[in-house]
């Protein structure tokens, strides 16, 4: 009983603190730091630090991880992020990130494409991808 109570507490705590994870294909060995991550998600670069093409996938507006992605990875509010990307997309400066509704689909995409980089809730992490943040 006590054990069950404790583990529920832990579960609650982990739910409240659920964080986002930035993931890439397991074969991706580029040195991907925070600056590289935000630059890719903001379309400032289209390549990983090792020069390989980088294709971003982000949680869409219906995905519960959207808020944490905007706040912790790119540091923008929803309107700021949308205004920022509108400027790039309608001027041909960058291809917008793929918008993902479902973390399971993101995992599948990242696990099968060495050029992709995505964002999911860390509770959905599994061994098919590599976490870089």
């Amino acid at each position, binding site marked *: 009983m006590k054990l069950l109570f404790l583990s529920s507490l832990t579960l609650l705590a982990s739910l409240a603190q659920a964080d986002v994870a930035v993931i890439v294909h397991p074969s991706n060995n580029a040195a991907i730091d925070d*600056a*590289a991550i*935000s*630059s890719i998600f*903001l379309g*400032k*670069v*289209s*390549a990983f630090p090792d*020069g*390989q*093409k*980088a294709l971003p996938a982000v949680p869409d*507006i219906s995905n519960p991880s959207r808020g944490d992605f905007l706040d912790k990875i790119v*540091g923008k509010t*929803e*309107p*700021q992020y*949308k*205004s*920022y990307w*509108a*400027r790039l*997309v*309608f*001027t*041909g*400066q960058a*291809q917008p990130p793929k918008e993902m509704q479902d973390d399971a689909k993101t995992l599948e995409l990242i696990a099968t494409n060495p050029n992709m980089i995505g964002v999911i809730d860390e509770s959905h992490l599994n061994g098919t991808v590599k976490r870089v943040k």
Partner: protein
Amino acid sequence: MALRILTGLLLLGFMLCPQADVTFSGFASVGAGKVISKKDDVFLSDYATVAQYDNDVSFSPDTTYGLQAMGRIDDKLSIASQIVGRGADEMNAGVEWAYITYELSPSLSMQVGRKRLPLYFYSDFYDVGYSYYWIRPPADNYTWQIFNYNGASLTYKTRMGDWGIKGDVYGGREDSPNNKLLSEFFFGETTNETWKNMLGAVLTVSGEMLEVRLNYLQGLNDRDFPDAGSTSTPFENYRFHNYGMSVNLDTGSLIVLTEYNMRRRHLDPAITTWLASVGYRMGELTPHVTYSKFSQEKLAGAETENHNTTIVGVRYDFHPSAAAKLQWDKVQDEGGPGWGVAGDSETISAAIDMIF
């Protein structure tokens, strides 16, 4: 002609490549406004399309829509087309962007086709009201008669730590028979305008809060007045140079925007334009104030064109993909006798901008 061929190619591409991954997106602005100063005052809110407000409420100057189709043929090749319709052109849509992008490497790409001329900071996304806080960028800085071109560009993107660095070089030309701004507004007769042998470069450095953009453009200008009995003086191969710099800061709450441009053509007096703007983001509301100025140097005491605009406004992000805006524009036209543009005016306008 080149444009028609490209548009045809684009359509053909979409038809022949059913496996191409095609995405559609768009933007729209619905705006209305009215001059509130003296009767008969006119506010020229957009020079290029001769969009004007007067004493009657009008929806045409700030109502715009754009639809973009982008097709990815494979990892390296994509085609894009954007049609834009404006109230100032009776909402008739025109293909303003139609280009092919080829990635030479993940950092280097080439675009060929029709694009916006990146003369000023807001040139490229001038139509996308959602991407900035005004209803439209200050008119004094955007007094351009040519705003698109046919040609090619090369873009290189890299990064130094937290700083993104983007370099563009481009070249091309634009023929604008019966140019709208010159024919309808400045000369009152058919004016054919050509900007050719254009060669330009843009360097953009952007950090977490600071963005700096430098640009240069040179080219040759031909102008011709074909109407019988015209007394205007045509010219050919007048060399022009444009230099521009923008420094913008966005801390998340405080926003400071600046832009400076200088242009010279042949022996004409140089034109300087600049703007300075401060905004403050408080949740969904962003109030802002701006001053912009257009001045032309005086040669041998001759009269020239001079005007400035003061803007006070607010942007309200009432929806994740839409913003409502309200703004007051006060124009002071200080041009010498015969050099006034649209005269003094005060205008209130409101708009809703969205993207989809």
